[in-house]
Each structure stands twice: as C-alpha cells, then as structure tokens.
C-alpha cells in the first residue's frame, strides 16, 4: 500500500504541476492574482515530499515486494543505510531531485510573496514546467515504486562503497544546491516575462542563490572528503567528469552570487545576471544528464537504461532552449543600468564574472570533448588532470588575486587610494612564494605560486574590516570576509597537498617497521573483526612522530550482499 500511496502522490503532484503551469500562463492568470498558483505550488511540493518519505519508508522496512528495494537493499543492512539507500540508486536519486525541486517551488510560493505579482506568477509557472518534465521522466521511465511480483526472498544489497555516512550527507546537500538554483532560473524567467528586472528582483533572488551556493559547496566538499577516505589513496579531486558536473554549476553560481549583488546594490548588469541565473541551473541539468544518463564511467553511474539518457537530453534541450529563446527575445528590451568607471567595484565584479565564465568554459569543453569526439568519430579518449590543472589552474589563481582587490573598491568610481593597503599582504605573499620556491624541492611552479597567492589572500581577505567598527560591521561583510578567507585556506590546502605529499609504497608483515617522512610506522598485528553485514581483516599500526603515538586500524572488508571486497583506509588528521 505504501508504494501505491507514494506513486499516487507522484501522479497527483504531476497533475498539480500541470495546473500550476496553466494557472500561471493560462487566460485567467492576470485576473486571479498569485494566490491560486501559490497554493498549487505548495501542495505540489508537499505531495512530492510525501512520495519521497513513502520511498524512504519502504526502504526502512525493506519491503521486498518493491522492485527498487529488492534490487538495492538488504534486510541485514544497518538502518541508516537502509533509509539513505533510498537515494543510493537511479530512481530514488531522481525522486530526491524532484522532491527538492517541488519543495523549492513551495518555498518560493511561501517566502517570496512580496515580489512583483506578474514576476512571481510566471516564476511559479516556470517552476511548474520544470517539475512537470522531471515528473514525466520519473513516472514514464524511472518509476521508483514499481512492484515485484512475487516478492524477492532477500534483497540484492547496496553497493558497499555507498554504505558510508557520506551517503547520508553528500546527495541531499548537493541536490539542495543543484536544484535550489532552479529558483534563480525560474525567477529570471519570471522577470524576463514581466520585464521587471531590477534591484527588488535581485534582492528576492539573492537568498536563494546564497543558500544554493552554500549547499552546493557543502555537497561538493562532502563528496570530495568521501572520495578521499573511501576511494582514493590521498586524492581529493580527480577531475572526473562527475566531479566536473558538480563544479560547473558551482562556478556559475559563484559568478551569479556576485553579479546578483551588483544588481541588488547598483541596479546594473541586468541582462547579464538573468543570463547567469539561467546558465547556473542549466549547468545543474547538464550535470544531472551527465551523471544520470549512464554515458559516463563512474561510481555515480548506477546501472542505467540508455533510453533514459535520451529522455534527459530532450528535457535539457527543451528547458535550456526555451529559456535562452526567451532571453534572446526579451533581454534587448531591458534598459541599461547606471554607468561606472574602469576602476570601481562593478568593474572588479565583472572581472570576477568573466574569469569564472572562462573557467566554466574550460571545464565544460574539457568535460564534454570526449563525449563529442566519441559521438562524431568513434575515437575514445579521456581528458584528465593534466588538462584541467594546466588550463584552469592559472585562471583560478588570477581570480584569487582579484578577490583581494575587489572588496577594497567602492561602487561606481574609485581613486584606488585604498589599494595601497594591499602592500603588506602582497609582501607576505611574495615572501611565502620565495620560501616555497627555495625550500620545497618538488617541481611545478603553479602550486608554489598558489601558496604565495593563498598567503596574500589570507591577509587581504580581512582588509575590508580595517578602519571599521567591528560591532557595527554588517553581517554580510563578515560573510564575505569569511568566504574569501576560505578561498585562501582552500588554495593553501590544494597547493600544500600537491607540494608536500610523502608517499611510501611497501608490502609489510606484522613486526615490520616503515619510515615515512618524520613518521615511524610499526605494523603490530592483523586480527579478524566483524560488523553487522561484513567481516574484515583489521591491521593495527602504531604511528609515531617524536613524542606520542597513535594507533591506525585500516581494514580489508568483505561484504556478503552483494559479495564485494572494500578497503577502509585509516586516516589520522594532525596539524
């Protein structure tokens, strides 16, 4: 019954999405105001959430008469992975995507009431149109609630690589980011239709962009950390197409986050901001297509039917095509914003946007090139770290330098007087670069420049606070300072992990001692251990550096359902 209830909720929600579209763009749209379309959006969101909860319930109970549960779950699995396993497969993961789309639409209806009426109605209509396509995708080609008759005796189990706390956090946060951008997309569509692209719209759009950007950043970080301890041996970013699929919306959202501020504060960059809002969610859809169509080789590519890829591609073409057609027809009607000089905060933010756009273009081309070449010539090739690091790396460092400069400039025009404050950070950056250049033997100039830029930015990020009363500084300024300091920390981490990694590859038996840099590792013993659905051989390693020591316990795990062997790395984090 639960599965049928979930399916019914999905069909109802799909019907409501159609109604939402009709109410927004149909003949009665202008007369009836926003109330009807808003209520429909809220109910539609609630129904999709209900469907998602139903699916999670069938997984929690391991209802083996549901095909998806029988294929992807197992009664002996820890309960956390039973519930989170609801989105550890193609259908469930798409349902989560649609659920967040529905909730985002409902939240837009609840929280953006004060937005100009025509804009809000059209935005909710656009949100309904998006939902409708993805409901169709779920119901026609990826039904998560399909029954299995007769029920399976036992489930096939979840891929053990996914049986990890990472599964609980990574997909939902990433999707909140991906799909949260749909609101920016819909608001841009709404504003282009109503012709009211102004700072009021930007102020309504900004919290959505900021929220989505935060979630996207968290989701990418969670995924990267998961890969760090589960898949790779010390790697945290592999320029895998699936990682790029999440990086592309992030780059676009970062650009949008900055340009929407220009629109809110100065009423400039109107057409450009609308364009970015559309590009950002289009990149989310491109990412979804890349990951869910099964054309990529990846951990994320669950066993997938190729027909689904065509469906997703059609949806992508429809939405992106329609949005850009709208943009082409309507953006010319937008009036120009107030002008500004070459040295001004607007100009610096345009620099930020252009650099991010170029990086986005470079990542986009590098990610899709192999697919394009294979489709056209049949030649198979892969584009990896050497390309992305060499081409996107320097651009990112130039951008990071600009991060130190931009916040010191004032709107409209600036004498450049405050830029003199950058002298000290610049000196610190140059010193750090010089030390890295001479003290670190490893080749490669880029990470050493990276260390210098990070050192400079770590100080420069705080300059906007200089000469201000800290208590009266608005929270948004603090947010900017912390975020920009975060960029410095991230670059420092990337550069340091490239430059200072020490790796020893060896075979050892209990009683052996291994020296790794300043560390002495003693291999003490190997013992068998067991968990609820696995058994393992666990090694005990005593790691010491100078004083105290720590015990590391890596495992070779054997899961029974499905029969798989995994390696659990032992990681000790020290300063």
């Amino acid at each position, binding site marked *: 019954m639960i599965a049928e209830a979930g399916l019914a909720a999905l069909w109802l929600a799909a019907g409501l999405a159609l109604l939402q579209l009709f109410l927004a763009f149909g003949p009665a749209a202008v007369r009836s105001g926003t109330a009807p379309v808003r209520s429909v959006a809220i109910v539609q969101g609630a129904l999709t959430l209900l469907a998602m909860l139903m699916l999670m319930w069938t997984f929690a109970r391991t209802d083996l008469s549901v095909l998806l549960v029988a294929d992807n779950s197992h009664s002996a699995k820890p309960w956390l992975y039973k519930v989170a396993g609801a989105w550890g497969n193609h259908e469930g993961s798409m349902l989560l995507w649609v659920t967040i789309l529905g909730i985002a639409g409902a939240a837009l209806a609840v929280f953006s009431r004060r937005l100009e009426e025509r804009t809000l109605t059209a935005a909710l209509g656009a949100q309904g149109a998006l939902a409708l396509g993805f409901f169709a995708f779920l119901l026609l080609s990826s039904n998560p609630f399909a029954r299995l008759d007769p029920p399976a005796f036992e489930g096939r189990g979840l891929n053990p690589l996914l049986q990890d706390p990472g599964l609980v956090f990574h997909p939902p946060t990433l999707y909140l980011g991906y799909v949260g951008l749909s609101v920016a997309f819909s608001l841009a569509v709404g504003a282009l239709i109503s012709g009211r692209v102004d700072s009021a719209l930007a102020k309504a759009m900004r919290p959505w962009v900021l929220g989505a950007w935060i979630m996207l950043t968290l989701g990418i970080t969670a995924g990267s950390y998961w890969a760090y301890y589960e898949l790779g041996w010390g790697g945290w970013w592999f320029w895998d197409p699936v990682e790029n699929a999440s990086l592309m919306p992030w780059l676009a959202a970062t650009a949008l986050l900055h340009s929407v501020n220009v629109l809110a504060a100065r009423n400039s960059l109107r057409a450009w901001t609308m364009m970015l809002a559309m590009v950002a969610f289009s990149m989310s859809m491109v990412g979804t297509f890349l990951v869910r169509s099964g054309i990529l080789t990846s951990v994320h590519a669950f066993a997938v039917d190729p027909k689904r890829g065509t469906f997703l591609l059609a949806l992508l073409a429809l939405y992106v095509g329609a949005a850009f057609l709208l943009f082409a027809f309507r953006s010319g009607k937008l009036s120009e914003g107030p002008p500004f000089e070459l040295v001004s905060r607007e100009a610096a933010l345009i620099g930020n946007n252009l650099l991010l756009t170029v990086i986005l273009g470079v990542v986009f*081309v590098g990610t899709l090139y192999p697919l394009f070449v294979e489709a056209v010539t049949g030649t198979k090739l892969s584009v990896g770290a050497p390309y992305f690091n060499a081409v996107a790396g320097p651009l990112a460092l130039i951008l990071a330098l600009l991060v130190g400069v931009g916040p010191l400039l004032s709107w409209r025009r600036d004498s450049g007087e405050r830029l003199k404050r950058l002298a000290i950070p610049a000196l610190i950056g140059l010193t750090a670069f010089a030390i890295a250049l001479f003290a670190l033997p490893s080749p490669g100039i880029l990470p050493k420049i990276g260390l210098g830029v990070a050192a400079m930015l770590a100080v420069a990020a705080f300059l906007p606070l200089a000469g201000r009363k800290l208590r009266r500084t608005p929270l948004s300024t603090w947010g900017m300072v912390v975020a920009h300091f975060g960029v410095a920390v991230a670059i420092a981490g990337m550069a340091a992990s490239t430059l200072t990694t020490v790796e020893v590859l060896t075979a050892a038996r209990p009683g052996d001692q291994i020296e790794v840099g300043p560390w002495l590792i003693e291999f003490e013993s190997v013992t068998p251990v067991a968990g609820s659905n696995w058994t393992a051989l666990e090694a005990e390693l005593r790691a010491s550096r100078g004083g105290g020591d720590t015990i590391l316990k890596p495992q070779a795990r054997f899961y029974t359902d499905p029969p798989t062997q995994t390696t659990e790395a032992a990681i000790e984090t020290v300063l």
Partner: protein
Amino acid sequence: MIAKPKHQRLVLILVALAAVFAAVLLAMWGLRDRAAYFYTPAEIASGKAAVGKPVRLGGMVEKGSIQHLADGVTTRFTVGDGKAEVSVVYRGILPDLFREGSGAIAEGQVTSDGAFVADNILAKHDERYMPPELGNQADEHKTAATVER
C-alpha cells in the same frame, strides 16, 4: 571618465564574447596534447599508440595472468580482448574489484618493447556495472554475472 550607458553596454557585450572566445581557444590549446586516447589490446599490439605518450588501455584481465612480484607492490598481468594480449606492469595498490576475468582500464604508457607500464588502474565499480568503454567485448561476461545471481 564615465561612458554613456549605451556604449558601456556595448563594451560589456564585446568583453563577454571575447571571454567566451578566449575560453574556447584556451581549451583547444589545452586539449591539443593533453587528451589521453583509449586503446584496445589489439590496437596497442598493432602499434597504434605512440611510445611514451599517456594513453588508456581497456580490456579483460586474462585468467591466470596476475603475478605479484617479489617486492610485494608490483603486479604484472595481461589484458586481452579476444584478439590480442598486452602485458601490463603496475606498481601500486590495485582496486578492490580488480580480478582475473573481469574488466579493467589501465592508465599509463607503452614502452619501446611493446609492454604497458600503468600508473593507475581502474576497475568496474560493482557486479552489475560494466564500463561503457568495455561495452560489446564484455557482453558474455555480463550475461554470465547475471546468471550467477
């Protein structure tokens, strides 16, 4: 000097177009010698891959071909596609799902004596999953795996 809004908009459009153009040019330049081509064992055996260039080799790990060398961390195995076989040497940690009779992709380069030195090995991620790159040649194995269930 503050420009007229109309002129400023024109300049911005031109700058944006230039940025997109620059991105494409940069990408083309970067891709020219940094894309790694994918080869089957037959193509490697016939000398299609240039010696010393980073390439990918994909195929099935031949039954009984995996040897662990005395240092404990170097592995030697053969990758085949039914038409040809290529000997691969890899120093490093093998993926958990790497096994004989199963698909694998080796990233590395061809040496002058026709062997393949890998610096990374990718294996399929689970029993149901087969890298599309191994596509047709692996169909028999895929069916076999399904029947076992």
